[in-house]
């Protein structure tokens, strides 16, 4: 029996080797520590978290009952991607341009929410919960505003807290307007309050960690799983102090994943982690494919549906890369060359894979293969880099200056991409240091063209899709064995945890020991509990949802030292 180093050793070695692709230690290459040796788990903290554009739109939808996507209609500035995700609290700023758009949107939202037309009666009634004619204006304003603000602020609001807002009724009266105009202004003030716009948590004494309160946990869960505010049920559970125990959180997570709103989690992960948002702006100049909105949409839908099935079907982590099925509609099935495509319509169905050309996971989905290609050809380097960074969490440095990129295909001397890439992999060249970590994986996917269709040859030469996974050295021949090799790699387990954790927390993870908020121990703990990629995707989500980083907070100084 061959004695292999334990997975944790492999991980540490990988991090060392990749640091700058030069063997130097100490850049930001990962710095993982073996499980069990990482010391106490520190929960860290998330800075006041502005709702990003997706979260804002969803929250307004659930708060007002109107799904109007104000961030799109009012051209909110785009959120900044940090480490692949656009929900990073530190980067979610609110510069004047943002507030301008927000203010215009807020005025429109309130006008729409209070629209007296019959079509809006139910939504309006949910806000105008009393009649000033019978209860008196002051009492009625207080009731309307405490009810609305308690939902908007995602925690109960006392009467005294809304008196400032209620004062706007007096402003309305002084301007010759009535109660309703005053309420409209007060609702605007609620929607512009940082208590609505930001998720803000109480600050424990500096240097100490404390459990979040139930409402804070409710918001953590709802923005992680739904990208929106807690629903009434979750708020009721918080009111009953029912979210402090891991078992209670686990039960809520189960309920929330079964709710249609969990499509936000799936779509955001597919869009950001798997990159399907890029399909909208991806340009393909191949002449034998119609890369229209339908095909782009179908590729993105497949990526989302597959991820959704991984969650809803209780699949193992490794099945993200390997399974026996796919999702397609007629257009995508024809694109893939699946038999019977003509009989499929525009809606998607789960299909058994008809042959052994695809691995049934994200590696061989058209979305992944397309967004990692150039306009008119494949790029094994880009594909390998994508796998390395997004599935193995090893960041590859950029090429040095004065190095030409791959020459386009010669018209006189047909050569495969593999042949042209060979120059990268000559030992001793400046390229070899990094390309040894990228090209081999990408070459394993050369059977798929720039839009993910199967091919047997490249420029007339038969495809050679053999290789070894960098560092683990696992051999493969084509996508199916490559998917299995990557899926069994402990780095993949680590990477899935990291990606989901980064998304769930909405902050960067710290694993280089540079900060007292180091997440190394927390990550190692989750990895150890999972054991291997045979654990389910839902298990990862449950472990993250109940982890110290999600349920606790490290206190901070209240004045600059």
């Amino acid at each position, binding site marked *: 029996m061959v004695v292999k180093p334990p997975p944790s050793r492999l991980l540490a070695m990988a991090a060392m080797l990749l640091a700058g692709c030069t063997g130097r230690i100490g850049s930001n290459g990962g710095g993982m520590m073996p499980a069990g040796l990482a010391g106490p788990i520190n929960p860290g903290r998330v800075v006041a978290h502005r709702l990003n554009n997706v979260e804002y739109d969803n929250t307004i939808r659930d708060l007002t009952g109107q799904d*109007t996507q104000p961030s799109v209609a009012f051209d909110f500035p*785009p*959120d900044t991607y940090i480490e692949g995700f656009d929900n990073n609290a530190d980067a979610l*700023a609110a510069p004047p341009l943002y507030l301008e758009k927000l203010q215009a949107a807020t005025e429109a939202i309130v006008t729409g929410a209070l629209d007296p037309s019959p079509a809006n009666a139910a939504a309006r009634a949910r806000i105008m919960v009393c009649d000033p004619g019978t209860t008196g204006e002051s009492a009625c304003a207080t009731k309307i505003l405490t009810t609305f603000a308690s939902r908007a602020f995602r925690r109960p609001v006392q009467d005294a807290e809304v008196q400032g807002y209620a004062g*706007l009724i007096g402003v309305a009266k002084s301007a010759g307007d009535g109660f309703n105009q005053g309420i409209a202004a007060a609702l605007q003030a609620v929607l*512009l*309050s*940082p208590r609505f716009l930001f998720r803000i948590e109480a600050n424990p004494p500096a240097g100490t960690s404390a459990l979040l309160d139930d409402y804070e946990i409710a918001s953590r869960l709802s923005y992680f799983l739904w990208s929106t505010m807690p629903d009434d049920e979750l708020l009721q559970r918080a009111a009953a102090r029912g979210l402090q125990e891991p078992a209670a959180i686990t039960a809520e997570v189960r309920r929330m994943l079964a709710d249609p709103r969990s499509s936000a989690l799936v779509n955001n992960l597919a869009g950001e982690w798997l990159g399907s948002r890029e399909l909208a702006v991806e340009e393909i100049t191949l002449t034998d494919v119609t890369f229209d909105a339908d095909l782009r949409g179908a590729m993105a839908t497949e990526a989302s549906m597959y991820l959704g099935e991984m969650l809803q079907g209780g699949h193992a982590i490794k099945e993200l890369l390997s399974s026996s099925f796919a999702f397609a509609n007629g257009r995508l099935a024809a694109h893939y060359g699946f038999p019977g495509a003509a009989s499929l319509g525009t809606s998607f169905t789960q299909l058994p894979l008809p042959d052994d050309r695809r691995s049934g996971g994200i590696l061989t989905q058209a979305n992944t293969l397309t967004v990692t290609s150039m306009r008119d050809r494949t790029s094994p380097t880009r594909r390998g880099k994508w796998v390395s960074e997004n599935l193995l969490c090893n960041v590859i440095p950029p090429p040095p200056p004065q190095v030409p990129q791959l020459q386009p295909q010669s018209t006189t001397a047909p050569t495969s991409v593999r042949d042209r890439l060979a120059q990268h992999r000559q030992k001793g060249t400046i390229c070899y240091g990094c390309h040894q970590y990228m090209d081999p994986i990408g070459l394993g996917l050369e059977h798929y063209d720039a839009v993910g269709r199967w091919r047997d040859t490249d420029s007339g030469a038969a495809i050679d899709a053999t290789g070894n996974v960098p560092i683990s050295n696992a051999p493969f021949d084509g996508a199916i064995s490559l998917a299995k090799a990557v899926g069994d790699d402990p780095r993949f387990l680590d990477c899935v945890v990291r990606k989901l954790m980064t998304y769930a927390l909405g902050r960067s993870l710290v694993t280089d020991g540079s900060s007292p908020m180091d997440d190394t121990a927390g990550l190692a703990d989750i990895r150890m509990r999972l054991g291997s990629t045979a654990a389910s995707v839902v298990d990862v989500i449950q472990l993250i949802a109940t982890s110290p980083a999600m349920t606790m907070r490290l206190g901070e100084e209240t004045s600059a030292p």
Partner: protein
Amino acid sequence: MKTFQLSRRACLRGAGVALGLPMLEAMLPIGRRARAQAAAAGKPIRLVVWTFPDGARMDAWTPKTTGAGYAMPPTLASLETYRPQINVVSGLANTPASVVSGDVFAGSHARATGAMLTQVPLVFTSGANFKAGISFDQVIANDLKVRVPSLRLPSLEIGAVYAGATGNCEDGFSCAYLTNLAWSGPTTFLPKETNPKAVFDRLVTGGLPTATPTMSTTPGTMTPTTTPPPPTGTTMGVDKTTLYRKSVLDLVAADTNALKKRLGVSDQAKLSDYLDSVNELERRLAALTPTTSGGGTGGGADGGAPTGTTMPTAGRSCAAIPTPKDGTYLGPTASKNVYGYSELIGVMNDLIAMAFACDLTRVVTFMSEIPLNTQTNFSFVGVSTSNYHDDISHHGGDPTKLAQYQTVNTFYAQQFASLLGKLSAITDADGSSVLDNSAVLFTSEFGDGDAHYHFNLPMVVAGRAGGAFSPGRHILYPSTADSGAGAIETARRADKPLANLYISIMQAFGMNVSTFGSVDGTTPYGTGPLTELAG
């Protein structure tokens, strides 16, 4: 007050090293500021920074001789018409961009872009602890907020390519660096607007909603009906609307202040940034309301910007452009991508011209493509669709790629020339052209893109800046000789700092500034103006 936030923000990210900011005019006592401003009285000075990415083919860009009478190089041929109004300035270096820890090649585009207008080295991070510095355009904008409060917008940040479609930035460096030019503070970048209709609306309204919008209750169909009035002197009834907005914002500000007190320092900083934005909107609300700023239309020489929601007509050839199409070039919503690339740049140039003609803002930064952008297809100027802009900038000496690189550079020079044409055609309040009263920069984050040089940058300085600059020449500063492989990314301390150009511009704006930026965090990088610009 905005001015005190510099030091406050600089200290917050406590990475151990507090970046020592050089003394800025904005930090000076009021008396000295007043004296500095006296120098600029009488001229409405303006700034445009107009950038293209990935550097230039410098042998086709740099004139062979210096002074007047140089032969216009091929890339800049379209600028021949404006020869009397431009200086080609060669040899400037962005040395702070060359400072990096770790891999010397990492994040070269991002470092250069983030340091371009801030002139400080960036924190090496792909994560959230990004940090640059205040950019010089924002130093000017902060001054204008005080000096000319009636301007619709203190500054305008625009671009041609949407930043949010992809999370692919440059390894090891934050997307925040690569996609933004303007920074109002070390951790606060100002995002760009890439929809011309939205830019138009902002300019006309100062970013304030103009009417109570309505929306349909049908999902997904909300349409803002904040269509601004035609900018031809129409006055709207804003009094009651303004009263409500002010009351609401007052309440939000009070709410934010009360909340802050209970929080840790990083949360407080976050809310302080939000409070700054609330205060800025309140400031504009007050400045643009006739009852609080004296009323009437503007048009005086300096400080004569329009008041209220009345568009100015006096003194300048102010005219609104037709309302632009509502959409983008490569935005996230396919159905809204209604612009061709050069078409969109043309409209953005029109908007800059309108903003200056009507004195709606005096500071504009325009970022055409995002560096490293792999989306823009230059087949419309004959560049093979197989080749991306960043790809051809890595020409490796290949003649085909060099030719394509030059073609793209030339395209941008033509677009820039078109802007100069528009600005020179507008008669300013003092009878000279708007271009005469402006400093209009045409530049990129790199010199030669193949080598990712942060020195010998391509730079055209157009306009007289109100008489401070004397154009018509090629000004050449010697660039430090290469000392072999490995020297390409090293800091070029001997080269003429880009920051000196910014000092010249800030001084033309009447600001009492003598240093800007820093390479090491303490020593000033720019230490005086580019005296040669004055002639």
